[in-house]
């Protein structure tokens, strides 16, 4: 019989159910967005599918009342945990005025919501890494005990800003958690054409910081290492580089055709490790996710996604002229 691994981590059955629910909600919103895209209702989707466990496991290990997150475009699981709603995400997908991320100015996946300490992001990869360091530096100056958490792909870990940012945090022993969501591909480029080290986390050695690689399909393992990193950070022991290993289950984005560079078989094989399936099985084996709970959960999520979609679809766009606003502070 399956042993209970979450209790040891201080997670209650409610906690792990909530982790699963958040993962599932992310998956369902993402799947809906693909349907909307294929139906010609939204121009673009970039997916979290295959990375929900890493994202939600990590976000649960943070303090959503005070920590700052600088997610990258796939991190729907992170922002949901930090307070962004399905409706917020759908408003962004439909580029509507009410989108809290950007008022419809940015593509979906460009997260930002100050009230939830989700820091505004852009398209050029890895630019958020030094930002996470700067916020941690500010917190240290102001005597705060929050940590900052930022994510990026393994391909993006080859950008200069990764190096400069992590090095700066290491020198100043700042409470930053750098999490590389290694999904084996950067669009079409496989990891062996991106880097030659065994583990992305090996790079931590070159900065004199802690580095760890963990199974990105296991939310509990990710929770454990991120929790440890956050604790270290709060204790003033500096940054941590974490690598989560999983697989991108969808094409890079709705504009991509992944058959050009990887086989269906490879994708099917990866789907066997899909945490939505494996973590669900774990919860079922431990009788935490009973059939009744599951039905209730699926219905609730379906309703949330439906309502969010309907609301966003009918919500208004920003006026054309409003594009002129907020280049600079008004009367500032």
């Amino acid at each position, binding site marked *: 019989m399956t042993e209970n691994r979450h209790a040891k981590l201080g997670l209650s059955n409610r906690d792990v159910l909530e982790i699963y629910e958040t993962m599932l909600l992310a998956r369902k919103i993402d799947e809906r967005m693909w349907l909307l895209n294929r139906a010609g209702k939204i121009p673009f989707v970039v997916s979290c599918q295959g990375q929900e466990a890493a994202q939600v496991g990590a976000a649960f290990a943070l303090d959503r009342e005070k920590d700052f997150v600088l997610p990258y475009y796939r991190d729907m699981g992170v922002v949901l945990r930090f307070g962004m709603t399905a409706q917020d995400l759908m408003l962004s997908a439909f580029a509507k005025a009410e989108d809290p991320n950007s008022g419809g100015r940015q593509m979906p996946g460009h997260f930002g919501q100050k009230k939830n300490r989700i820091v505004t992001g852009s398209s*050029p990869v890895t630019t958020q890494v030094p930002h996470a360091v700067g916020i941690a530096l500010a917190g240290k100056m102001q005597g705060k005990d929050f940590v900052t958490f930022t994510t990026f792909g393994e391909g993006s870990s080859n950008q200069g*800003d990764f190096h400069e940012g992590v090095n700066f945090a290491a020198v100043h022993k700042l409470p930053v958690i750098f999490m590389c969501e290694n999904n084996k591909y950067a669009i*079409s480029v496989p990891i062996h054409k991106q880097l030659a080290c065994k583990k992305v986390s090996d790079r931590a050695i070159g900065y004199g910081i802690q580095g760890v690689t963990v199974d990105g399909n296991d939310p509990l393992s990710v929770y454990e290492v991120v929790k440890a990193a956050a604790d270290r950070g709060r204790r003033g022991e500096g940054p941590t580089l974490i690598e989560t290993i999983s697989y991108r289950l969808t094409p890079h984005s709705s504009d991509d055709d992944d058959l050009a560079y990887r086989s269906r078989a490879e994708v099917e094989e990866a789907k066997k490790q899909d945490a939505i399936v494996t973590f669900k099985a774990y919860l079922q084996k431990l009788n935490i996710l009973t059939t009744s709970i599951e039905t209730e959960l699926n219905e609730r999520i379906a309703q949330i996604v439906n309502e969010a979609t309907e609301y966003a679809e009918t919500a208004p766009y920003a006026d054309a002229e409003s594009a002129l606003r907020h280049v600079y502070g008004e009367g500032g």
Partner: protein
Amino acid sequence: MPVISYIEAVTLAIKEEMERDDKVFVLGEDVGARGGVFRATSGLYEQFGETRVIDTPLAESAIVGVGIGAAMYGMRPIAEIQFADFIMPAVNQIVSEAARIRYRSNNDWNCPMVIRAPYGGGIHGALYHSQSVEAMFACIPGLKIVMPSTPYDVKGLLKAAIRDNDPVLFFEHKRAYRLIKGEVPLEDYTLPIGKADIKRNGQDITVITYGLAVHFALQAAEKLAEDGISAHVLDLRTVYPLDKAAIIEAAKKTGKVLLVTEDNKEGSILSEVAAIIAEYCLFDLDAPIQRLAGPDIPAMPYAPTMEKFFMINPDKLERAMRDLAEF
């Protein structure tokens, strides 16, 4: 002559130059098996193999910097920046290095390299997949910046860029990729970098522009022609260094000048074009030099309302051209 699309002209020019000279090679993100996210390099990986069509790590400064090294050795790299917006991490290598290799070594070394990047909006690309970035580089001696408008110009100018002994930034309008088609001769030809091209002869007003806007200008010119207004359209083709003589001649021809760009207005390529005209043919002008450009906001937003508001289009050009004609 066969009719091909703008992007087919890009692919064909690279393919022919790679066949012609084994020192020519391609490097960039997803340029290999994927054939580029826009398919500009499709077929090249299959034809020339992964040693000459290199999928690089995701690092623009290295893409350009490694290209510079290879170029100094004597190769002719063609670096693809996936979107012009993502050229920013490579600015130091382009501006401090590529542009100055020849000058700083007193002609001992040189850097024959092409940096290609798709730019421009109207494709729901939002703030970071729609930008025009040419103005930032149009003040850097040592660089040449080419921004073609037609498949014919694309092929002739890209071949010229690849054969050029100095670095060339080659910006391709991503919306033109499949929208714009045109006749392209089968035989090998090049077009001179640094020369503007008259795309339409006219007497009443002069429109000076480049890239996709050239087509908007030509469409608007047809409309105006119905009302007996004849527009002269000059396509800059090379936006740095500018073809002064052609600009002066075009401005003098009608005395009424409209400058058009998709970029933001302040500090764009048009500023220098206006300055040249104001310096060399002020007294030939019958109207103030007009500029039609994007508003001075970072870039075009994602929402269709705001994107449309930002983008220039044939109607906006037609209106501006009529106003000028009536001045």
